[in-house]
């Protein structure tokens, strides 16, 4: 018996609509299940770290998965003391923020010219910058150390800020150039008609349009600098200038490691990175309408 053909037209529309919205709902559900699963995988290490940061080392030895029987907030005070986080947090902040600021400013400026202009040796210079991404940093530890000695840089924040800028520039320029190249050429042309100079075009047009990619490189550079260990270890000798990653290594002895206080320290060290990400996250996804209109 034919039971599908004789449906009135409106009803068919309705059915199709409900079917459509049903499908949409199912799809949405699938997406959410998928995203939730992904979130669990991503959050597990952090929650695990957070939970264990309240345990005693004994309790951690007994079981790494059990819920803490008593919550030792004292671990945080201990971690703060052992890792000298009071001092090192401000050092890391000063070094990290200044290095990121200069990396992105210098990098964005250089990228603007590399991406939007055409001049002699342009490709060579661009490639020269990109080479920097192919260098394993541990190979440069000793030469850099000797170089900084010769320049008498060791007893200042510059001993880390400058190498962080130098090693942050390649990836910064690489990413920014690729983004800045993708804007339409008409942008400058209309600006020039309006009488804008190249600097004005950079500040008021290209830079605002590049905000998503600027946010990207700020995040990448900040994380790299915040977690950087080898340069900080070798290039800094003055205990007053050390950074957070060095402090966090204080929990590791020759034969033993105090994991629970280390986790308390690591939890605290993670907070600034998350704050930076949250502050910049909106720039990442805020479609810069300026680009869309003029492009």
């Amino acid at each position, binding site marked *: 018996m034919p039971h599908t053909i004789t449906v009135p037209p409106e009803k068919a529309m309705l059915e199709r609509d409900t079917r459509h919205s049903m499908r949409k709902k199912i799809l949405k559900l699938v997406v959410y299940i998928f995203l939730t699963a992904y979130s669990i995988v991503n959050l597990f290490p952090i929650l695990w770290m957070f939970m264990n940061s309240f345990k005693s*080392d*004994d309790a*951690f*030895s*007994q*079981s*790494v998965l059990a819920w803490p029987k008593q919550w030792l907030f004292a671990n945080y005070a201990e971690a703060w003391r052992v890792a000298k986080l009071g001092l090192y947090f401000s050092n890391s902040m000063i070094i990290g923020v200044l290095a990121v600021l200069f990396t992105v400013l210098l990098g964005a400026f250089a990228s603007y010219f590399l991406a939007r202009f055409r001049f002699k040796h342009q490709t060579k210079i661009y490639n020269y910058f990109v080479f920097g991404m192919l260098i394993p940093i541990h190979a440069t*530890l*000793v030469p850099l*150390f*000797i170089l900084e*000695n010769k320049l008498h840089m060791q007893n200042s924040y510059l001993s880390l800020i400058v190498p962080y800028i130098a090693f942050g520039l390649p990836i910064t320029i690489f990413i920014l150039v690729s983004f800045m190249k993708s804007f339409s050429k008409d942008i400058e042309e209309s600006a020039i008609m309006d009488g804008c100079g190249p600097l004005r075009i950079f500040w008021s047009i290209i830079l605002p349009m590049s905000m998503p990619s600027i946010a990207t490189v700020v995040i990448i550079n900040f994380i790299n600098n915040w977690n950087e260990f*080898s340069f900080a*270890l*070798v290039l800094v*000798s003055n*205990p007053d200038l050390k950074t957070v990653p*060095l402090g966090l*290594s*204080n929990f*590791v*002895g*020759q*034969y*033993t*490691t*105090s*994991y629970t206080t280390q986790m308390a320290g690591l939890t605290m060290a993670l907070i600034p990175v998350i704050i930076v990400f949250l502050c910049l996250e909106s720039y990442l996804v805020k479609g810069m309408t300026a680009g869309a209109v003029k492009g």
Partner: protein
Amino acid sequence: MKRAHTVISKAVSIMLVLILSIGLTACGSGSNSSNEPENKPSNGGTTTEAPAKNVELTFWNIWNGSDAYMGVLNDKVSEFQKENPNIKVKIEQMPHDQYKLKLKASAAGRQLPDMFVVWPGAELKPMVDGNTVLPIDDLAAEYKDKLIPSANLIDYQIDGKQYAIPNIVVYTHMIYYDKDILAQAGYSEFPKTYTEFKEMVVKVRELGVTPIALGNKGQWVLQSCYISTIGDRMTGSDFLVKAMSGEKKFTDPEFVGGLNVIKELTDLKAFNEDLNTIDNNQHLDYFVQGKAAMFVEGTWSLGGVQEKLPKDRNLGLAIFPAVEGGAGNPQALSGVTGQGVAINKDIDPAKLDAARQFIRFLSSEDTYNRLLAKDQLVPATVTVPSDASDTLKQLISLTSGGVAPVYDAVLTPQLTEIINNGLQSITMGTKSPEEVASELEAAKAK
């Protein structure tokens, strides 16, 4: 002599520099002949031979952990500062692995601090060859066979010259076992021979308990804590030196026999399956959790086990039993002296006296007594106090059977790397003991 030296300290320090700079280091300058190293810290200030001018000494060490010896040595450093206001010791502390990286990078850049903690033997040799450390034979003469027996000084000697005074002794091998689990398996006492040991492993395995918890992710455990002692049972203590000089070969049956013990234990399923993916912290945890009947690590682990082991568990200490047919002393334990402080070869001559004074103060009888009080073994001949803890007494009796070399202190770093990886290969079954032995022999020849 001391007074005279104080008066003409400047002149002497200049003279000393002259003597040192022309390489005449073996004979003392005469300033130290009566300076007993066992000065009480209280006279440390009065016997000062430091220049009147303020000096600043930079000093790197690894004493920022929780090991008991670190506390004692740090206390001594701060006491030194208090008693010698004209000498400022500027300290930089780093954990062990980071320390070694920084030390090597700084040595390559010729920017070592005035004083730094060094490891004996194979790690010290390239630093000596590279002219980065200052010989301190005259200082050592003050200790030799007085406070420290000459045998305990040789670890820090390269080509007959002394480069540091050891502060502690560690034995890299000790078996920590659960008396109750062994009793369950039918053993009221720890096995006396290797054959009995293997039988015990099988019986413990039958109980459903891992016989030996092993965390060899860091690679040094099997080498430093196992094969250094087990190999010695087979080869005797002079083998490594002879093998390096070419008199013996790594492919000799006695050495292969030592490696074979690891293979046999692996085949008996003596270890946890994840032995190469967990570290030594975790093997201690497995033991603490009751998942394993024993674990093997150095004397440094004692404090941690005692602290973490629940009170209702009974901890036993033992050493690896005699191996039938082995050429070595069945009581010997692999051990090494350590935490000696070396002086930078390029030290500012004006600072040298202060540095020597610092080392004298740090490596003094008082320090060794305080270390003993913390159950730490020391290289010095100081009397064990009558009220010493049972732990210390037991440690001393277990470690008094003779000292065998620790492999990574004697072998070159390249050979250490090969044996470290080779031992892992043996436990994975990817290489046979013979293959590892011939790899070592081949690399030695280079």
